């Protein structure tokens, strides 16, 4: 009788331990866990797609240094002497001129050495470029005025990289100065330029004085003067 009683008691506890053993196994097949896994995989795929899209949106730009039948070589970084080759297809590649915020289709034959080109969507140099834009190059930089030539309407500017430039101030140059009272920007003239002032400027490197190219002499497109009094007052 006692044996039967003990057997039944052990049987009751056995149910409990069997359930516990089942629970101890990792529940990888549960719907919530599977859903989580699918979501993570989806996120990873989306992230990869975004990365590839970003790569496709890469743009290279630079000055043309060589043109061959189906290939144009650009100098993309003057300082590092970095060159990039772009492949073109007479049927596929379209060429546009960018000017005044608009694009106009041009013929491939118009492209010549020293032109500034922008090529979007190019990841590898052996991929044919779909679109090539020709644009006016310009440089945006800043420096300190080190000389003012009132006779010739030129100024010398020394940049933070110790590059010295001579700029012509022309009638078309947009001239601005920082108003020290309001810290706003107002119109300026050549008379406002003086040695020691900081200058923020924009110029077109294609318009270099070809008679003296070593002199870094350009007409100035626009400038903003930060008077030295801003730092001393």
């Amino acid at each position, binding site marked *: *009788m006692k044996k*039967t*009683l003990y057997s*039944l*008691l052990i*049987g*009751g*506890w*056995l*149910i*409990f331990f069997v*359930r*516990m053993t089942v*629970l101890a196994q*990792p*529940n*990888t097949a*549960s719907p*919530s*866990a599977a*859903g*989580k*896994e699918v979501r*993570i995989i989806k996120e990873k795929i989306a992230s990869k797609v975004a990365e590839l899209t970003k790569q496709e*949106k*890469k*743009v290279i*730009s630079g000055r043309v240094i060589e043109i061959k039948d189906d290939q144009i070589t650009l100098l993309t970084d003057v300082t590092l002497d970095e060159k990039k080759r772009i492949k073109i297809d007479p049927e596929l590649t379209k060429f546009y001129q*960018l000017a005044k*915020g*608009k*694009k106009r289709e041009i013929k491939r034959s118009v492209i010549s050495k020293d032109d500034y080109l*922008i090529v*979007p*969507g190019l990841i590898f140099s052996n991929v044919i470029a779909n679109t090539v*834009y020709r*644009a006016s190059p*310009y*440089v*945006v*930089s*800043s420096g300190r005025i080190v000389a003012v030539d009132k006779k010739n309407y030129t100024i010398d500017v020394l940049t*933070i990289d110790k590059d010295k430039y001579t700029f012509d101030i022309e009638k078309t140059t947009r001239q*601005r100065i*920082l108003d020290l009272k309001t*810290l*706003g*920007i107002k119109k300026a003239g050549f008379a406002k330029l003086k040695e020691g002032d*900081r200058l*923020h*400027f*924009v110029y077109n490197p294609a318009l270099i004085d070809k008679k003296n190219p070593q002199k870094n002499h350009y007409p100035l*497109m*626009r400038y*903003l003067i*930060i008077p030295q009094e*801003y*730092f001393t007052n």
Partner: protein
Amino acid sequence: MKNEVAITIVLGLFFGALLAFFVIGRSQNKPVGRHPVISKPTEVPVQKNKLGKEDFIGLEIESPQNQTVVNNPQLKLIGRASKNSLVVIQTQKGEEAFLDKQGNFEKNLKLVLGENDINVTVYNQKIQTGEQSKLLKIFYFPDR
């Protein structure tokens, strides 16, 4: 069989089953993320600047990144500079200058078709660190 024995057996089975169901219920209510299916990404500890945000000196452009290609001509420039810096933003089409009292600045810029070089410079009157500049090259093509 005596009555006491029968009751003991029934109670033994009942409490065994009850305990089993209690443990099952608890384990099923646990959050999904704790299942060892895929390990949670390890959180990288954020290393704070020694100077702290308040004492930030210099220039940092948070957005956009250099060489970004956008299809919208409106660009929001977000950056950080030391407090009370004079921020000068120069582009091909214009220039902006303003005093950054808070040490965080935001400016909406209008882009031109193609390449946009944006030169951001900060000047600080009080701290003799000189000027700091950053040049961003942003490309705007509406059909991309």
